[in-house]
């Protein structure tokens, strides 16, 4: 008797697993699920946060020019070069032989200049004219902060 009991338990277990699958997000019942392959995969920052690995670079924040935006010395910025920079984005630019991290302000684009805005009253915005050879090096998509 004890043997058949354990057999029953075993079948139950399998059935439950299949039920779970039916409720997996985005999966239609009765279909050999493509989600099956992902069932056991853990969350993975590399896979889930970085949309364009071939265009993604990392940078370490130095200085306090963005501290009011919560971007502080030692933080790691995840930079995606393939993203088209837009007004208000945090971007990485290259000025006077240095990489800089700032807000991109395109308000005055029609007037022939753009501004790189810091997030700290100690610093003033950097004005860039049409004639300056400046390009946005990449757009910051995440900032990683170490607490401990």
């Amino acid at each position, binding site marked *: 008797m004890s043997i058949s009991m354990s057999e029953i338990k075993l079948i139950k277990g399998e059935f439950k697993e299949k039920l779970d699958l039916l409720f997996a997000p985005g999966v239609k019942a009765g279909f050999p699920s493509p989600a099956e392959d992902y069932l056991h995969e853990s969350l993975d920052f590399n896979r889930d946060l970085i949309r*364009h*690995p*071939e*265009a993604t*670079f*990392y*940078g*370490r*924040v*130095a*200085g306090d*020019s963005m501290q009011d935006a919560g971007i502080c010395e030692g933080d*790691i*910025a995840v930079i995606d*070069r*393939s993203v088209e920079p837009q007004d208000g984005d945090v971007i*990485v630019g*290259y000025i006077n*032989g*240095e*990489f*800089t*991290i700032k807000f991109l302000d395109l308000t005055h684009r029609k007037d022939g200049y753009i501004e790189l805005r810091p997030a700290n009253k100690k610093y003033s915005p950097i004005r860039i004219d049409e004639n300056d050879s400046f*390009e946005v*090096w990449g757009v910051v998509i995440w900032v990683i902060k170490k607490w401990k």
Partner: protein
Amino acid sequence: MFGIVDCDNCYVSCERVFRPDLNGKPVVVLSNNDGCVVARSNEAKAMGIKAGTPYFKLQQQYPDKDIAVFSSNYELYGELTGRVVEIIRQEAPAYLTSSRNCSRSGIKINSDVSRLPAVFRYSIDECFVYFNGNGNDFQFSTLHSSLKEWGENLHKRIKKSVGMPVSIGIAPTKTLAKMASHFAKKYKGYHHCCLIDTDEKRMKALKLYPIDEVWGIGRRYAARLQALGVQTAYDFAQHHESWVRATFNNIVILRTWKELNGIDCVPNEEMARKKSICTSRSFNGMVTDFDTLRTHVSNYAARCAEKLRQQGTVATIVSVFVNTNFFREDLPQYWNFQEKRLTVGTNSTIEIVKAATEVLRDIYIEGYHYKKAGVIVMGISPTSPQQLDLFDYNAEQFQKMQRLDAAIDRLNKVNGSETVVLGSQQYTQKDGKGKANVFANAIRHDHRSKNPTTRWSDIIKLK
């Protein structure tokens, strides 16, 4: 149709990714050990700096010119070009091939139609892309109106995502594609992509193209062709096939002739395996004693063996060359180049190092100041099947060697290169910790850039 994507001044462009201030300025990259110039920016080329110029001559010739100089940083170049290849893979259309075509190239396919990878990396800075048919029936034709537009967009995406400028050539054969990529590189009007898709365009390109720049025509053959009155690719292509056969009796030349005439015939396998592998370096200073020289040569031989194993090939010829410093006219000069043929092809570190050491023993003469040495392995063929020599071949020994080499490769991959080396690879000067460090430090790289894509300590600083 074939496309080739070629990185413009690859090493220089890699350095510029993290030094945008160097755009528009002369930049050179030096060979291993900072010996001579191996890569030049367009500005450096315009100044008249030739590839191969020794570094010290560069300093003498342009004392007051502001030239940015970098030691070669293959870690960086490998990583960035890997990104370029990845983007090409994403953009390349699915390549479908019928079983007939496959069996010709030696691959057995059961189904009628099969998918093959459409992208083939040819070297660190070149990549081939295969297109089905004549270019009108692509799956992505809804996205791009033509192959030309596809190429222009590919360049834009690579430039934006990685920061690498590329030139793209697309044509009915690989040789013509390579030619097209040169036009794309040379003339801005092509917007980085040159397409040869009609006979008219092909003829025009051939007429403009010097014979000595044709892919697959070596310097020697180019000279012979020029002596026969062939100046351009067009002159060559216009000759009759029988003339080519009779004059050269060489399969590679005949293939090139066919390819210029639009007949695809350079096999993929051939592109993958290079004809020889060379590892050589100029020494940091000069070497007089045999033991130090042997250590250098052993390391170069070991590197060749490693490269062979990576390719899955074996070599039957191991050659070694040495030379003194030709710039030191005050010292006696000597150079030599000898080879040893092996009865059985090998890629075993032990066997190749042993053969190289034997050759070195023959050519080494005491009393000279040696500046450079190198090991070249040739006669390269796939690992199996091999021509077996009944007397020399010992199956048990062979398998043992293979297992040992596999273990060495694994250790060096996990723990960093040169973790495990042969005794003869060790330098006699020791740092107390191990040989590997000493070897790494023996190479000079005074101007090496950081590795912002492979080391956390080197990621860019954002102010």
